[in-house]
Structures are given as structure tokens and as C-alpha cells.
């Protein structure tokens, strides 16, 4: 129980980001022509901000459905990495608990959980699960509720507002704080250059080619830097 309360408490600050973000998704989704039920469907079933916005953007660009799915799923590939990284800590929990945790495994839950587990390795599996179960409702329920508020209040926003640019601004605002290393910069730089070079291709195809190129660039720079550090150490 104490672990659950701790999880809930430590999740609270993240609401400062999640709530406005979900409001924005609700507003932009309905302004793009999605029904309220569809907008809610995204937040309840997908529950992953960046991919929700990317699907919206590509639907707005009239991209083919397969491309919408492939690009948006590619953004969520990192969730597989979260899943792998939590397995040593939670792998022995009952299967139903692991199935529930998989549903609520968003960036913020993962960040909170991995920090807590690594700092307090003496916690039991039950305590770890309780921590995640405490933090998740605090993060996920406001995400869903705020989407609804944004979706239903969106019509109050004046029509001449440049809402088309809300998604690009949101993406740039998510990417910039992530650019911590040379490898991240290389990944973003190569992907931008490639996407611009391939802008003439059918809608959404550029992303599918530019994304992997950027990922490869990031991984290459990381490898190269790792080798250099190893050599410097002798």
C-alpha cells in the first residue's frame, strides 16, 4: 500500500505536461474532423501521445492507411524497449499483472518505475507492481479525461486560429528536449534532411524511409563514439 501511495504521489508532477497535452489532442483531433468517440478511442486504446498526434497528422495529409499505421507504430517501437528493460524487475509478477502493466506502460510510467526500481533494488516484486499500479491511474485517467474536455470544448476555439500548426509545434517540443547527445542530433538531422529530400514522394512514404535512416545514423554515431572512448581508455 505504501508503494502504491508513493507511486501516485510521484506521478503527480507529470500531470503538468500530460493534461495540456491531452487537451490539445482533443481539440486538434475534433478540429481535424474526428468524432468525439473516435478521439476518445485514440486516447483509450492507443494511450500514447506522440503516435496519436502522428496518426492525426498523416490522416490530415490523406496518407494511405497502411502508411498511417506503419509510421505511428514505428514511433511506439520504443515501448518494446521499455518492456524489455522492465522485465528483470517485474518478470516474476503474475501474468495478469504484467498484462495490465503493459497497457499503462507510457513514457512517464516507465521513467518513474525504472528510476524507483534501480534506486531501491531491495523492493519485492509485489511492492514494485504496487508502485506501478499506484502511479498509472494518476497518469492515464487524466490523459483520457483531458482528451474528452479538449474534444468537447474544442468548438469554443475561434476558427481563424492556426490549429494546423499545433501538431508540428507539439512534435518539435517533444523532440528538442530529447536531443541530449551527438547521436540524437545526428538521428534527427539525417531524418529531417531525408524527409525534406523525399517530400515529393506520396504522402507519408518519406517518413517510412527517413525514419530508419535517422535511426541508423544515431546508432552509427553511438557505435563510433563508443569505439573512440574505448580506444582513449586504451
Amino acid at each position: 500500500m505504501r508503494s502504491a501511495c508513493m507511486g501516485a504521489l510521484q506521478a503527480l508532477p507529470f500531470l503538468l505536461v500530460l493534461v495540456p497535452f491531452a487537451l490539445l489532442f482533443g481539440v486538434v483531433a475534433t478540429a481535424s474532423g474526428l468524432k468525439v468517440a473516435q478521439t476518445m478511442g485514440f486516447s483509450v486504446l492507443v494511450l500514447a501521445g506522440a503516435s496519436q498526434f502522428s496518426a492525426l497528422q498523416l490522416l490530415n495529409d490523406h496518407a494511405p492507411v497502411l502508411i498511417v499505421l506503419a509510421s505511428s507504430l514505428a514511433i511506439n517501437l520504443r515501448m518494446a524497449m521499455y518492456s524489455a528493460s522492465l522485465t528483470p524487475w517485474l518478470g516474476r509478477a503474475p501474468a495478469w499483472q504484467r498484462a495490465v502493466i503493459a497497457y499503462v506502460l507510457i513514457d512517464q510510467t516507465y521513467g518513474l518505475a525504472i528510476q524507483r526500481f534501480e534506486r531501491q533494488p531491495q523492493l519485492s516484486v509485489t511492492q514494485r507492481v504496487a508502485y506501478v499500479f499506484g502511479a498509472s491511474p494518476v497518469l492515464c485517467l487524466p490523459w483520457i479525461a483531458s482528451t474528452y474536455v479538449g474534444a468537447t470544448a474544442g468548438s469554443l476555439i475561434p476558427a481563424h486560429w492556426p490549429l494546423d500548426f499545433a501538431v508540428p509545434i507539439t512534435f518539435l517540443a517533444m523532440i528538442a528536449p530529447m536531443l541530449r547527445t551527438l547521436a540524437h542530433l545526428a538521428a534527427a538531422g539525417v531524418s529531417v534532411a531525408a524527409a525534406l529530400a523525399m517530400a515529393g514522394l506520396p504522402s507519408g512514404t518519406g517518413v517510412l524511409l527517413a525514419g530508419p535512416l535517422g535511426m541508423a545514423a544515431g546508432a552509427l554515431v553511438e557505435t563510433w563514439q563508443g569505439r573512440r572512448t574505448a580506444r582513449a581508455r586504451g
Partner: protein
Amino acid sequence: MGGYSDLTIWTVIVVLGIGTYLMRWSFLGAVGNRPLPEWAQRLLRYTAVAVLPALVAPQVIWPAATQGHPDPARLLAAAVTVAAGLLTRHTLWAILAGGAALALGMGLMG
């Protein structure tokens, strides 16, 4: 939502939902305790910073709202968003700064 039927949009939502869930569940639920190979971890680390910029770059330079003509207000807003994100390291501050720059730019230039 132009050009898509309700059924198509629901298909996108449901498939995206199931696919995302399966990725989250993959190791925790099915694969178990085996670590990802090093090269896979290395690539996955860069998915977000590679895929998101590719999506956004053409929209920044050739916005659909201006029929694909570069727009000074939107370019300014994009630059301010990135600068604020790099400086503050917080998504929310970057969104607010970018939104303010866009409003200002549209007011001055529009």
C-alpha cells in the same frame, strides 16, 4: 476527416491500439527475461528522435494551410519551439513558447 470512412478511422485506431499494446507486452508478457541484443537496443533508442522530425519537417517548410508556401510566422514558431525546448528541456515550455511565437507572428505578419 476528408476522404476516410468512419470504418477506416476506427480500423486505424483499433490496429494502432492493438499493435502498441503488443509492443508494450512483448518482453514483459511473452519473451521474458532475455535481454534485447545490443544492436536492437541501439536502434530503438533513436526511434522517437528519428521518426518525429521526419514527420514534421515537410509541414514546417511547406505547410498545407498555406498551400505549401513557406510561411514566415510558422517558420518563426518552429524555430522558437526548438530553441525553447533545447534551453528549458521541457516539452510544455517549448509548446507554450512556440504557440506564443506563432500568435505573435500571425498578428504581426498576417
